[in-house]
Protein backbone atom coordinates (compact mmCIF):
# COMPACT_ATOMS: atom_id res chain seq x y z
CA UNK A 1 0.00 0.00 0.00
CA UNK A 2 0.91 3.61 -0.32
CA UNK A 3 -0.24 6.75 1.35
CA UNK A 4 -3.53 8.03 0.08
CA UNK A 5 -2.25 11.24 -1.46
CA UNK A 6 -4.55 14.15 -1.87
CA UNK A 7 -5.30 15.37 -5.32
CA UNK A 8 -2.96 18.10 -6.39
CA UNK A 9 -3.65 21.43 -4.83
CA UNK A 10 -6.35 20.29 -2.41
CA UNK A 11 -6.27 22.09 0.93
CA UNK A 12 -5.88 19.54 3.70
CA UNK A 13 -6.94 20.05 7.29
CA UNK A 14 -6.32 17.61 10.12
CA UNK A 15 -7.87 17.75 13.56
CA UNK A 16 -6.88 16.14 16.83
CA UNK A 17 -9.45 15.81 19.59
CA UNK A 18 -8.64 14.62 23.07
CA UNK A 19 -12.21 13.57 23.70
CA UNK A 20 -14.88 11.88 21.64
CA UNK A 21 -16.53 14.27 19.21
CA UNK A 22 -19.77 14.00 21.19
CA UNK A 23 -18.05 16.27 23.67
CA UNK A 24 -19.55 19.65 22.70
CA UNK A 25 -16.33 21.66 22.77
CA UNK A 26 -14.55 19.40 20.31
CA UNK A 27 -17.82 18.74 18.54
CA UNK A 28 -18.06 22.41 17.57
CA UNK A 29 -14.64 22.36 15.92
CA UNK A 30 -15.54 19.15 14.16
CA UNK A 31 -18.79 20.60 12.84
CA UNK A 32 -16.99 23.68 11.55
CA UNK A 33 -14.48 21.51 9.69
CA UNK A 34 -17.28 19.44 8.19
CA UNK A 35 -18.92 22.61 6.99
CA UNK A 36 -15.62 23.82 5.57
CA UNK A 37 -15.37 20.58 3.64
CA UNK A 38 -18.53 21.59 1.83
CA UNK A 39 -18.22 25.35 1.69
CA UNK A 40 -14.49 25.77 1.25
CA UNK A 41 -13.65 22.57 -0.56
CA UNK A 42 -11.04 21.45 1.95
CA UNK A 43 -10.10 17.85 2.70
CA UNK A 44 -10.54 16.94 6.34
CA UNK A 45 -9.29 14.12 8.55
CA UNK A 46 -9.58 13.79 12.30
CA UNK A 47 -8.68 11.59 15.24
CA UNK A 48 -10.76 11.56 18.39
CA UNK A 49 -10.13 10.27 21.90
CA UNK A 50 -6.38 10.74 21.70
CA UNK A 51 -4.72 9.82 24.99
CA UNK A 52 -2.36 12.31 26.58
CA UNK A 53 0.66 10.19 25.86
CA UNK A 54 -0.24 9.75 22.18
CA UNK A 55 -0.84 13.36 21.19
CA UNK A 56 2.66 14.02 19.98
CA UNK A 57 2.75 10.89 17.86
CA UNK A 58 -0.53 11.75 16.17
CA UNK A 59 0.52 15.33 15.50
CA UNK A 60 3.84 14.29 14.06
CA UNK A 61 2.11 11.81 11.81
CA UNK A 62 -0.15 14.52 10.44
CA UNK A 63 2.74 16.91 10.08
CA UNK A 64 4.84 14.35 8.24
CA UNK A 65 1.97 13.77 5.84
CA UNK A 66 2.08 17.43 4.95
CA UNK A 67 -1.28 18.78 6.00
CA UNK A 68 -1.75 22.50 5.38
CA UNK A 69 -3.54 23.21 8.64
CA UNK A 70 -3.71 21.25 11.86
CA UNK A 71 -6.31 22.15 14.48
CA UNK A 72 -7.53 20.67 17.73
CA UNK A 73 -7.77 21.17 21.46
CA UNK A 74 -4.51 21.72 23.28
CA UNK A 75 -5.85 22.09 26.77
CA UNK A 76 -4.02 20.16 29.41
CA UNK A 77 -2.02 17.42 27.74
CA UNK A 78 -1.96 18.97 24.29
CA UNK A 79 -0.27 22.28 25.08
CA UNK A 80 3.30 21.09 25.23
CA UNK A 81 3.30 18.55 22.39
CA UNK A 82 1.33 20.73 19.99
CA UNK A 83 3.70 23.65 20.53
CA UNK A 84 6.68 21.34 20.21
CA UNK A 85 5.51 19.81 16.96
CA UNK A 86 4.52 23.21 15.58
CA UNK A 87 8.02 24.47 16.23
CA UNK A 88 9.42 21.55 14.26
CA UNK A 89 7.17 22.20 11.27
CA UNK A 90 7.13 25.96 10.68
CA UNK A 91 5.71 25.53 7.18
CA UNK A 92 2.46 24.09 8.56
CA UNK A 93 -0.22 26.23 10.21
CA UNK A 94 -1.38 25.13 13.65
CA UNK A 95 -4.43 26.48 15.45
CA UNK A 96 -5.32 25.03 18.81
CA UNK A 97 -7.87 25.62 21.48
CA UNK A 98 -5.76 26.87 24.37
CA UNK A 99 -5.88 29.07 27.42
CA UNK A 100 -2.41 30.35 26.58
CA UNK A 101 -1.01 32.55 23.86
CA UNK A 102 0.03 32.14 20.23
CA UNK A 103 3.63 31.44 19.16
CA UNK A 104 5.32 32.81 16.07
CA UNK A 105 5.48 31.92 13.33
CA UNK A 106 2.80 29.27 13.02
CA UNK A 107 0.90 28.52 16.23
CA UNK A 108 -2.43 30.30 16.67
CA UNK A 109 -4.86 29.83 19.52
CA UNK A 110 -8.60 30.06 19.93
CA UNK A 111 -11.13 29.38 22.63
CA UNK A 112 -14.87 29.37 23.18
CA UNK A 113 -15.53 32.99 24.11
CA UNK A 114 -19.25 32.55 24.48
CA UNK A 115 -19.70 34.39 27.74
CA UNK A 116 -21.79 36.96 25.89
CA UNK A 117 -24.66 34.63 25.00
CA UNK A 118 -24.22 33.01 28.42
CA UNK A 119 -24.86 36.43 29.93
CA UNK A 120 -27.94 36.84 27.76
CA UNK A 121 -29.17 33.43 28.91
CA UNK A 122 -28.67 34.59 32.48
CA UNK A 123 -30.75 37.68 31.78
CA UNK A 124 -33.59 35.50 30.55
CA UNK A 125 -33.23 33.22 33.54
CA UNK A 126 -33.23 36.10 35.99
CA UNK A 127 -36.44 37.46 34.58
CA UNK A 128 -38.30 34.19 34.09
CA UNK A 129 -37.54 32.44 37.36
CA UNK A 130 -40.21 32.24 39.99
CA UNK A 131 -38.17 30.73 42.77
CA UNK A 132 -35.18 33.01 42.26
CA UNK A 133 -33.01 29.91 42.48
CA UNK A 134 -31.02 28.89 39.39
CA UNK A 135 -29.04 25.69 38.87
CA UNK A 136 -25.85 25.08 36.96
CA UNK A 137 -24.52 21.61 36.18
CA UNK A 138 -20.99 21.79 34.82
CA UNK A 139 -18.05 19.55 34.03
CA UNK A 140 -15.08 20.81 36.02
CA UNK A 141 -14.17 24.30 37.19
CA UNK A 142 -11.83 25.42 34.39
CA UNK A 143 -11.71 28.91 32.88
CA UNK A 144 -13.73 27.84 29.86
CA UNK A 145 -16.50 26.72 32.16
CA UNK A 146 -16.13 29.38 34.86
CA UNK A 147 -16.47 32.16 32.28
CA UNK A 148 -19.83 30.86 31.19
CA UNK A 149 -21.12 30.20 34.67
CA UNK A 150 -20.05 33.62 35.93
CA UNK A 151 -21.50 35.38 32.91
CA UNK A 152 -24.73 33.48 33.30
CA UNK A 153 -24.90 34.47 36.94
CA UNK A 154 -23.97 38.08 36.19
CA UNK A 155 -26.68 38.27 33.57
CA UNK A 156 -29.25 36.96 36.00
CA UNK A 157 -28.14 39.29 38.79
CA UNK A 158 -28.23 42.26 36.44
CA UNK A 159 -31.99 41.95 36.20
CA UNK A 160 -32.79 40.29 39.53
CA UNK A 161 -30.63 40.94 42.60
CA UNK A 162 -32.37 38.20 44.62
CA UNK A 163 -31.01 35.39 42.46
CA UNK A 164 -29.21 32.50 44.10
CA UNK A 165 -27.25 30.03 42.01
CA UNK A 166 -26.55 26.40 42.85
CA UNK A 167 -23.60 24.84 41.08
CA UNK A 168 -22.55 21.20 40.81
CA UNK A 169 -19.57 19.67 39.03
CA UNK A 170 -19.75 16.12 37.74
CA UNK A 171 -15.99 15.73 37.55
CA UNK A 172 -15.66 14.78 33.89
CA UNK A 173 -16.83 15.54 30.37
CA UNK A 174 -19.41 12.78 30.19
CA UNK A 175 -21.48 11.27 32.92
CA UNK A 176 -25.08 12.04 31.99
CA UNK A 177 -26.54 9.96 34.83
CA UNK A 178 -24.54 11.93 37.35
CA UNK A 179 -25.43 15.22 35.66
CA UNK A 180 -29.06 14.29 35.85
CA UNK A 181 -28.84 13.53 39.55
CA UNK A 182 -27.08 16.81 40.15
CA UNK A 183 -29.88 18.61 38.33
CA UNK A 184 -32.52 16.74 40.30
CA UNK A 185 -30.81 17.74 43.51
CA UNK A 186 -30.95 21.37 42.41
CA UNK A 187 -34.58 21.10 41.43
CA UNK A 188 -35.36 19.67 44.86
CA UNK A 189 -33.50 22.60 46.34
CA UNK A 190 -35.85 24.92 44.52
CA UNK A 191 -34.12 25.65 41.23
CA UNK A 192 -36.61 26.22 38.42
CA UNK A 193 -34.14 26.99 35.62
CA UNK A 194 -30.97 25.08 34.99
CA UNK A 195 -27.99 25.92 32.84
CA UNK A 196 -26.85 22.59 31.42
CA UNK A 197 -23.19 23.04 30.73
CA UNK A 198 -23.07 19.24 30.23
CA UNK A 199 -25.39 16.56 28.81
CA UNK A 200 -27.77 14.79 31.12
CA UNK A 201 -29.66 17.71 32.64
CA UNK A 202 -32.58 18.00 30.23
CA UNK A 203 -34.07 14.69 31.28
CA UNK A 204 -34.24 15.82 34.88
CA UNK A 205 -35.74 19.14 33.84
CA UNK A 206 -38.28 17.57 31.52
CA UNK A 207 -39.47 15.05 34.12
CA UNK A 208 -40.03 17.84 36.62
CA UNK A 209 -41.47 20.42 34.28
CA UNK A 210 -38.53 22.75 34.83
CA UNK A 211 -36.84 24.77 32.07
CA UNK A 212 -33.22 24.58 31.02
CA UNK A 213 -30.53 26.22 28.93
CA UNK A 214 -28.28 24.25 26.60
CA UNK A 215 -24.66 24.96 25.86
CA UNK A 216 -22.30 25.14 22.88
CA UNK A 217 -24.86 24.26 20.20
CA UNK A 218 -28.58 24.65 19.66
CA UNK A 219 -29.80 21.77 21.78
CA UNK A 220 -33.48 22.52 21.61
CA UNK A 221 -34.17 19.32 19.66
CA UNK A 222 -33.06 17.25 22.67
CA UNK A 223 -36.04 18.45 24.68
CA UNK A 224 -38.12 20.95 22.70
CA UNK A 225 -40.43 22.01 25.51
CA UNK A 226 -37.66 22.25 28.06
CA UNK A 227 -34.71 23.95 26.44
CA UNK A 228 -35.26 27.69 26.19
CA UNK A 229 -32.06 28.64 24.48
CA UNK A 230 -28.39 28.80 25.42
CA UNK A 231 -25.00 30.07 24.37
CA UNK A 232 -23.84 28.73 21.02
CA UNK A 233 -20.30 28.56 19.79
CA UNK A 234 -19.59 28.57 16.09
CA UNK A 235 -16.07 27.77 14.99
CA UNK A 236 -16.78 28.26 11.34
CA UNK A 237 -15.63 31.90 11.21
CA UNK A 238 -12.35 30.86 12.76
CA UNK A 239 -11.81 27.94 10.40
CA UNK A 240 -12.84 30.02 7.42
CA UNK A 241 -10.40 32.75 8.39
CA UNK A 242 -7.62 30.22 8.90
CA UNK A 243 -8.17 28.45 5.61
CA UNK A 244 -8.33 31.69 3.71
CA UNK A 245 -5.20 33.18 5.26
CA UNK A 246 -3.19 29.99 4.85
CA UNK A 247 -4.34 29.68 1.26
CA UNK A 248 -3.38 33.26 0.65
CA UNK A 249 -0.01 32.75 2.28
CA UNK A 250 -0.96 35.41 4.81
CA UNK A 251 -1.12 33.20 7.90
CA UNK A 252 0.38 34.66 11.05
CA UNK A 253 0.28 33.30 14.56
CA UNK A 254 -2.35 35.10 16.59
CA UNK A 255 -5.02 34.80 19.21
CA UNK A 256 -8.22 34.15 17.30
CA UNK A 257 -10.39 35.09 20.24
CA UNK A 258 -12.49 37.62 18.34
CA UNK A 259 -13.62 35.06 15.82
CA UNK A 260 -15.37 33.18 18.61
CA UNK A 261 -17.28 36.17 19.92
CA UNK A 262 -20.66 37.51 18.90
CA UNK A 263 -19.21 40.37 16.91
CA UNK A 264 -17.70 38.08 14.29
CA UNK A 265 -20.46 35.49 14.36
CA UNK A 266 -18.48 33.01 16.43
CA UNK A 267 -20.93 33.14 19.28
CA UNK A 268 -24.66 33.59 19.48
CA UNK A 269 -27.70 33.00 21.55
CA UNK A 270 -29.45 29.87 20.32
CA UNK A 271 -32.83 30.38 18.67
CA UNK A 272 -35.59 30.68 21.21
CA UNK A 273 -37.85 28.41 19.16
CA UNK A 274 -41.21 28.22 20.90
CA UNK A 275 -40.20 30.52 23.73
CA UNK A 276 -40.05 33.48 21.44
CA UNK A 277 -43.86 33.63 21.76
CA UNK A 278 -44.27 32.12 25.22
CA UNK A 279 -41.87 34.38 27.10
CA UNK A 280 -43.04 37.77 28.38
CA UNK A 281 -42.52 40.38 25.74
CA UNK A 282 -40.28 42.56 27.90
CA UNK A 283 -37.81 39.68 28.27
CA UNK A 284 -37.48 39.28 24.54
CA UNK A 285 -37.17 42.99 24.07
CA UNK A 286 -34.45 43.37 26.66
CA UNK A 287 -32.46 40.40 25.34
CA UNK A 288 -32.68 41.54 21.75
CA UNK A 289 -31.64 45.02 22.83
CA UNK A 290 -28.61 43.75 24.75
CA UNK A 291 -27.74 41.50 21.82
CA UNK A 292 -27.72 44.50 19.53
CA UNK A 293 -25.58 46.50 21.95
CA UNK A 294 -23.03 43.70 22.14
CA UNK A 295 -22.92 43.40 18.35
CA UNK A 296 -22.50 47.15 18.11
CA UNK A 297 -19.70 47.05 20.61
CA UNK A 298 -21.47 49.39 22.97
CA UNK A 299 -21.93 46.83 25.70
CA UNK A 300 -19.14 44.64 26.95
CA UNK A 301 -19.97 41.54 29.00
CA UNK A 302 -17.58 41.32 31.93
CA UNK A 303 -15.27 38.33 31.92
CA UNK A 304 -14.65 36.54 35.20
CA UNK A 305 -12.74 33.31 35.43
CA UNK A 306 -12.96 32.89 39.17
CA UNK A 307 -14.28 29.52 40.25
CA UNK A 308 -17.90 30.13 41.23
CA UNK A 309 -19.46 28.32 44.15
CA UNK A 310 -23.02 27.70 45.14
CA UNK A 311 -24.86 30.44 46.97
Amino acid at each position, binding site marked *: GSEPEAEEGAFRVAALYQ*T*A*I*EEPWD*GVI*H*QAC*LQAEIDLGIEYEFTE*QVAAADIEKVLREYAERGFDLIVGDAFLAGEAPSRRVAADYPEIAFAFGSEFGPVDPNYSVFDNWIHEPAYLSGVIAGMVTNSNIL*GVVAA*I*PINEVNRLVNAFKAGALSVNPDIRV*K*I*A*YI*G*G*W*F*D*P*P*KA*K*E*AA*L*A*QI*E*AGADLIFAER*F*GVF*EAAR*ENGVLAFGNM*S*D*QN*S*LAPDTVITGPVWNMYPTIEYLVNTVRAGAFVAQDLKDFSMMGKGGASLAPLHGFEEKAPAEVITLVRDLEAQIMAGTFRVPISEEQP*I*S*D
Partner: protein
Amino acid sequence: MIGEILSVTFITGLIGAMMRMATPIIFAMLGEIITERAGVLNLGIEGIMLMGAMTGFLVTLSTGSLWTGVFAAALVGMVFALIMAVLVVYLGLSQHVSGLGITLFATGLAMFIYRLYFGSPTVPPIVKPFSRIEIPLLSKIPILGQGLFHHYSLTYIAVLLIPAVAILLYKTKVGLKIRTVGENPFAADTVGVNVNLTRTLCLVAGGALMGIGGAFLTLAHQNMFLLDVIGGRGWVAVAMVIFGNWDPVKGAIGALLFGLVDGLQLRLQGLGLHVSFDIFLMIPYVITIIALIGVSRRASVPAALLQPYRREDKGG
Protein backbone atom coordinates in the same frame (compact mmCIF):
# COMPACT_ATOMS: atom_id res chain seq x y z
CA MET B 1 -27.22 24.14 56.17
CA ILE B 2 -28.17 21.41 58.62
CA GLY B 3 -31.70 22.62 58.18
CA GLU B 4 -31.46 22.10 54.46
CA ILE B 5 -30.15 18.58 54.94
CA LEU B 6 -32.95 17.66 57.31
CA SER B 7 -35.71 19.07 55.13
CA VAL B 8 -38.31 16.69 53.80
CA THR B 9 -37.61 17.42 50.16
CA PHE B 10 -33.94 16.84 50.71
CA ILE B 11 -34.50 13.45 52.30
CA THR B 12 -37.16 12.39 49.83
CA GLY B 13 -34.92 13.45 46.97
CA LEU B 14 -31.99 11.64 48.45
CA ILE B 15 -33.92 8.40 48.78
CA GLY B 16 -35.05 8.71 45.18
CA ALA B 17 -31.49 9.36 44.04
CA MET B 18 -30.30 6.36 45.98
CA MET B 19 -32.76 4.11 44.20
CA ARG B 20 -31.91 5.46 40.76
CA MET B 21 -28.17 5.43 41.21
CA ALA B 22 -28.32 1.94 42.66
CA THR B 23 -30.49 0.42 39.93
CA PRO B 24 -27.80 -0.25 37.29
CA ILE B 25 -25.42 -1.42 40.01
CA ILE B 26 -28.02 -3.81 41.41
CA PHE B 27 -28.63 -5.36 38.01
CA ALA B 28 -24.93 -5.79 37.35
CA MET B 29 -24.18 -6.91 40.89
CA LEU B 30 -26.85 -9.61 40.78
CA GLY B 31 -25.50 -10.78 37.44
CA GLU B 32 -22.02 -10.92 38.87
CA ILE B 33 -23.20 -12.77 41.97
CA ILE B 34 -24.87 -15.50 39.96
CA THR B 35 -21.72 -15.80 37.88
CA GLU B 36 -19.31 -15.81 40.77
CA ARG B 37 -21.40 -18.20 42.80
CA ALA B 38 -20.77 -20.68 40.00
CA GLY B 39 -17.04 -20.03 40.27
CA VAL B 40 -16.46 -17.53 37.49
CA LEU B 41 -15.28 -13.96 37.96
CA ASN B 42 -16.62 -11.91 35.06
CA LEU B 43 -14.52 -8.78 34.69
CA GLY B 44 -16.10 -8.28 31.29
CA ILE B 45 -18.89 -6.57 33.26
CA GLU B 46 -17.94 -2.99 32.43
CA GLY B 47 -17.73 -3.72 28.70
CA ILE B 48 -20.86 -5.84 28.69
CA MET B 49 -22.78 -3.02 30.39
CA LEU B 50 -21.57 -0.58 27.76
CA MET B 51 -22.58 -2.93 24.96
CA GLY B 52 -25.97 -3.30 26.64
CA ALA B 53 -26.32 0.46 26.95
CA MET B 54 -25.40 0.96 23.30
CA THR B 55 -27.45 -1.91 21.90
CA GLY B 56 -30.52 -1.05 23.95
CA PHE B 57 -30.31 2.52 22.76
CA LEU B 58 -29.74 1.64 19.13
CA VAL B 59 -32.53 -0.90 18.99
CA THR B 60 -34.99 1.38 20.72
CA LEU B 61 -34.07 4.19 18.38
CA SER B 62 -34.70 2.05 15.33
CA THR B 63 -37.75 0.15 16.56
CA GLY B 64 -39.28 2.80 18.76
CA SER B 65 -39.91 0.18 21.43
CA LEU B 66 -38.19 0.53 24.77
CA TRP B 67 -38.84 -3.05 25.85
CA THR B 68 -37.39 -4.34 22.59
CA GLY B 69 -34.32 -2.31 23.44
CA VAL B 70 -34.11 -3.81 26.92
CA PHE B 71 -34.52 -7.25 25.43
CA ALA B 72 -31.78 -6.60 22.89
CA ALA B 73 -29.49 -5.36 25.64
CA ALA B 74 -30.07 -8.57 27.57
CA LEU B 75 -29.42 -10.57 24.43
CA VAL B 76 -26.17 -8.84 23.64
CA GLY B 77 -25.10 -9.31 27.26
CA MET B 78 -25.78 -13.00 26.85
CA VAL B 79 -23.75 -13.18 23.66
CA PHE B 80 -20.72 -11.60 25.29
CA ALA B 81 -21.13 -13.78 28.35
CA LEU B 82 -21.17 -16.75 26.01
CA ILE B 83 -17.86 -15.67 24.52
CA MET B 84 -16.57 -15.39 28.06
CA ALA B 85 -17.87 -18.89 28.75
CA VAL B 86 -16.01 -20.35 25.80
CA LEU B 87 -12.81 -18.71 26.99
CA VAL B 88 -12.87 -19.41 30.69
CA VAL B 89 -15.18 -22.38 31.07
CA TYR B 90 -14.43 -24.52 28.07
CA LEU B 91 -10.87 -23.39 27.39
CA GLY B 92 -10.04 -22.69 31.01
CA LEU B 93 -8.23 -19.43 30.27
CA SER B 94 -7.43 -16.95 33.01
CA GLN B 95 -10.62 -15.34 34.24
CA HIS B 96 -8.92 -12.07 35.04
CA VAL B 97 -7.43 -11.55 31.65
CA SER B 98 -10.34 -12.90 29.62
CA GLY B 99 -12.71 -10.60 31.45
CA LEU B 100 -10.53 -7.57 30.94
CA GLY B 101 -10.12 -8.64 27.30
CA ILE B 102 -13.89 -8.75 26.91
CA THR B 103 -14.18 -5.30 28.46
CA LEU B 104 -11.54 -3.92 26.12
CA PHE B 105 -13.17 -5.54 23.11
CA ALA B 106 -16.75 -4.67 24.01
CA THR B 107 -15.89 -1.07 24.86
CA GLY B 108 -14.15 -0.60 21.54
CA LEU B 109 -16.93 -2.35 19.70
CA ALA B 110 -19.73 -0.37 21.33
CA MET B 111 -18.20 2.93 20.29
CA PHE B 112 -17.17 1.56 16.91
CA ILE B 113 -20.71 0.50 16.07
CA TYR B 114 -22.18 3.71 17.43
CA ARG B 115 -19.82 5.79 15.34
CA LEU B 116 -20.47 3.77 12.20
CA TYR B 117 -24.19 4.02 12.73
CA PHE B 118 -24.49 7.68 13.66
CA GLY B 119 -21.41 9.34 12.26
CA SER B 120 -20.85 12.60 14.06
CA PRO B 121 -24.07 14.56 14.50
CA THR B 122 -24.23 18.06 16.01
CA VAL B 123 -26.34 16.88 18.89
CA PRO B 124 -26.49 13.28 20.01
CA PRO B 125 -29.59 11.34 18.95
CA ILE B 126 -32.12 10.66 21.67
CA VAL B 127 -34.95 8.28 22.39
CA LYS B 128 -38.08 8.85 24.36
CA PRO B 129 -37.12 7.12 27.59
CA PHE B 130 -39.12 5.16 30.11
CA SER B 131 -41.23 7.36 32.30
CA ARG B 132 -41.55 6.95 36.02
CA ILE B 133 -44.46 5.11 37.50
CA GLU B 134 -46.10 6.18 40.68
CA ILE B 135 -47.37 3.25 42.70
CA PRO B 136 -50.83 4.14 43.94
CA LEU B 137 -51.21 4.56 47.69
CA LEU B 138 -47.64 3.63 48.54
CA SER B 139 -46.28 6.69 46.80
CA LYS B 140 -48.46 8.82 49.06
CA ILE B 141 -46.61 7.78 52.22
CA PRO B 142 -45.02 10.91 53.62
CA ILE B 143 -41.28 11.40 53.03
CA LEU B 144 -40.64 7.84 51.85
CA GLY B 145 -43.43 7.51 49.32
CA GLN B 146 -42.03 9.65 46.57
CA GLY B 147 -38.53 8.42 47.28
CA LEU B 148 -39.32 4.73 47.11
CA PHE B 149 -42.41 4.36 44.96
CA HIS B 150 -42.03 6.77 42.09
CA HIS B 151 -39.56 5.11 39.77
CA TYR B 152 -38.90 3.51 36.42
CA SER B 153 -40.27 0.03 35.89
CA LEU B 154 -36.68 -1.21 35.57
CA THR B 155 -35.94 0.03 39.07
CA TYR B 156 -38.87 -1.94 40.42
CA ILE B 157 -37.68 -4.97 38.49
CA ALA B 158 -34.20 -4.58 39.96
CA VAL B 159 -35.63 -4.47 43.46
CA LEU B 160 -37.79 -7.52 42.84
CA LEU B 161 -34.84 -9.38 41.42
CA ILE B 162 -32.98 -9.15 44.71
CA PRO B 163 -35.21 -11.63 46.58
CA ALA B 164 -35.70 -13.58 43.38
CA VAL B 165 -31.98 -14.24 43.02
CA ALA B 166 -31.69 -14.99 46.73
CA ILE B 167 -34.49 -17.54 46.46
CA LEU B 168 -32.94 -19.01 43.34
CA LEU B 169 -29.62 -19.46 45.09
CA TYR B 170 -30.79 -20.70 48.45
CA LYS B 171 -34.14 -22.33 47.95
CA THR B 172 -34.02 -24.12 44.64
CA LYS B 173 -32.26 -27.18 43.31
CA VAL B 174 -30.71 -25.11 40.57
CA GLY B 175 -29.34 -22.76 43.20
CA LEU B 176 -27.84 -25.59 45.19
CA LYS B 177 -26.18 -26.85 42.03
CA ILE B 178 -24.82 -23.41 41.24
CA ARG B 179 -23.40 -23.01 44.72
CA THR B 180 -21.86 -26.47 44.66
CA VAL B 181 -20.28 -25.83 41.28
CA GLY B 182 -18.75 -22.67 42.68
CA GLU B 183 -17.55 -24.26 45.90
CA ASN B 184 -16.41 -27.66 44.74
CA PRO B 185 -16.87 -28.46 41.06
CA PHE B 186 -15.44 -31.90 41.63
CA ALA B 187 -18.24 -32.63 44.09
CA ALA B 188 -20.81 -31.33 41.66
CA ASP B 189 -19.43 -33.38 38.82
CA THR B 190 -19.43 -36.57 40.85
CA VAL B 191 -23.11 -36.24 41.56
CA GLY B 192 -23.89 -35.77 37.90
CA VAL B 193 -24.11 -31.99 37.69
CA ASN B 194 -22.73 -30.69 34.41
CA VAL B 195 -20.19 -28.23 35.77
CA ASN B 196 -19.34 -26.48 32.54
CA LEU B 197 -22.94 -26.17 31.44
CA THR B 198 -23.95 -24.76 34.81
CA ARG B 199 -21.17 -22.22 34.68
CA THR B 200 -22.07 -21.27 31.14
CA LEU B 201 -25.71 -20.78 31.99
CA CYS B 202 -24.83 -18.69 35.01
CA LEU B 203 -22.52 -16.54 32.93
CA VAL B 204 -25.23 -16.10 30.32
CA ALA B 205 -27.91 -15.23 32.86
CA GLY B 206 -25.51 -12.84 34.55
CA GLY B 207 -24.61 -11.29 31.20
CA ALA B 208 -28.26 -10.61 30.52
CA LEU B 209 -28.60 -8.73 33.81
CA MET B 210 -25.43 -6.75 33.14
CA GLY B 211 -26.74 -5.81 29.70
CA ILE B 212 -30.03 -4.61 31.19
CA GLY B 213 -28.12 -2.67 33.84
CA GLY B 214 -26.35 -0.84 31.04
CA ALA B 215 -29.57 -0.25 29.14
CA PHE B 216 -31.16 1.33 32.22
CA LEU B 217 -28.70 4.16 31.86
CA THR B 218 -29.52 4.90 28.23
CA LEU B 219 -33.23 4.08 28.19
CA ALA B 220 -34.52 5.14 31.58
CA HIS B 221 -32.17 7.31 33.55
CA GLN B 222 -31.01 8.97 30.36
CA ASN B 223 -32.18 9.14 26.81
CA MET B 224 -28.86 9.21 24.98
CA PHE B 225 -25.75 7.15 24.59
CA LEU B 226 -22.37 8.69 25.28
CA LEU B 227 -18.92 7.22 25.56
CA ASP B 228 -18.46 7.11 29.31
CA VAL B 229 -22.03 6.38 30.21
CA ILE B 230 -21.13 3.40 32.41
CA GLY B 231 -18.40 5.36 34.17
CA GLY B 232 -16.97 2.55 36.28
CA ARG B 233 -20.34 1.35 37.59
CA GLY B 234 -19.41 -2.17 36.51
CA TRP B 235 -16.36 -2.13 38.73
CA VAL B 236 -18.45 -0.79 41.58
CA ALA B 237 -20.80 -3.74 41.08
CA VAL B 238 -17.86 -6.13 41.44
CA ALA B 239 -16.91 -4.38 44.65
CA MET B 240 -20.48 -4.69 45.91
CA VAL B 241 -20.46 -8.44 45.30
CA ILE B 242 -17.56 -8.75 47.68
CA PHE B 243 -18.98 -6.15 50.04
CA GLY B 244 -22.13 -8.24 50.19
CA ASN B 245 -20.20 -11.42 50.78
CA TRP B 246 -21.70 -12.99 47.62
CA ASP B 247 -25.19 -12.57 49.04
CA PRO B 248 -27.79 -10.81 46.88
CA VAL B 249 -29.49 -9.02 49.73
CA LYS B 250 -26.31 -7.77 51.36
CA GLY B 251 -24.90 -6.85 47.97
CA ALA B 252 -28.03 -4.84 47.24
CA ILE B 253 -27.66 -3.06 50.56
CA GLY B 254 -24.15 -2.16 49.47
CA ALA B 255 -25.40 -0.90 46.13
CA LEU B 256 -28.06 1.20 47.83
CA LEU B 257 -25.50 2.58 50.25
CA PHE B 258 -23.28 3.50 47.34
CA GLY B 259 -26.21 5.15 45.57
CA LEU B 260 -27.09 7.01 48.74
CA VAL B 261 -23.61 8.38 49.22
CA ASP B 262 -23.34 9.28 45.55
CA GLY B 263 -26.65 11.10 45.68
CA LEU B 264 -25.62 12.81 48.90
CA GLN B 265 -22.33 14.11 47.54
CA LEU B 266 -24.08 15.72 44.58
CA ARG B 267 -26.48 17.39 46.99
CA LEU B 268 -23.75 18.54 49.33
CA GLN B 269 -22.04 20.23 46.40
CA GLY B 270 -25.09 22.39 46.03
CA LEU B 271 -24.82 23.66 49.59
CA GLY B 272 -21.90 25.92 48.85
CA LEU B 273 -19.24 24.26 50.96
CA HIS B 274 -15.77 25.51 50.21
CA VAL B 275 -14.36 22.07 49.55
CA SER B 276 -12.91 20.72 46.32
CA PHE B 277 -15.57 18.88 44.35
CA ASP B 278 -13.09 16.01 43.96
CA ILE B 279 -13.35 15.37 47.65
CA PHE B 280 -17.09 14.89 47.22
CA LEU B 281 -16.65 12.59 44.26
CA MET B 282 -14.26 10.49 46.31
CA ILE B 283 -16.68 9.95 49.20
CA PRO B 284 -18.57 6.92 47.83
CA TYR B 285 -15.35 4.99 47.24
CA VAL B 286 -13.86 5.83 50.61
CA ILE B 287 -17.07 4.87 52.40
CA THR B 288 -17.14 1.57 50.53
CA ILE B 289 -13.59 0.75 51.61
CA ILE B 290 -14.36 1.62 55.20
CA ALA B 291 -17.50 -0.50 55.05
CA LEU B 292 -15.46 -3.39 53.64
CA ILE B 293 -13.26 -3.33 56.70
CA GLY B 294 -16.37 -3.93 58.73
CA VAL B 295 -17.67 -6.87 56.75
CA SER B 296 -14.40 -8.53 55.79
CA ARG B 297 -13.98 -10.63 58.91
CA ARG B 298 -16.32 -13.29 57.68
CA ALA B 299 -15.66 -13.07 53.96
CA SER B 300 -16.55 -16.30 52.23
CA VAL B 301 -15.42 -16.29 48.67
CA PRO B 302 -16.71 -19.21 46.58
CA ALA B 303 -13.90 -21.69 46.97
CA ALA B 304 -13.56 -22.52 43.29
CA LEU B 305 -13.65 -18.93 42.05
CA LEU B 306 -11.03 -18.33 39.34
CA GLN B 307 -10.35 -22.05 38.96
CA PRO B 308 -11.08 -23.69 35.65
CA TYR B 309 -12.47 -27.17 35.93
CA ARG B 310 -10.89 -29.88 33.84
CA ARG B 311 -11.59 -33.44 34.83
CA GLU B 312 -8.31 -35.06 34.02
CA ASP B 313 -6.05 -32.30 35.24
CA LYS B 314 -4.12 -33.42 38.23
CA GLY B 315 -3.36 -31.30 41.23
CA GLY B 316 -5.34 -28.31 39.93
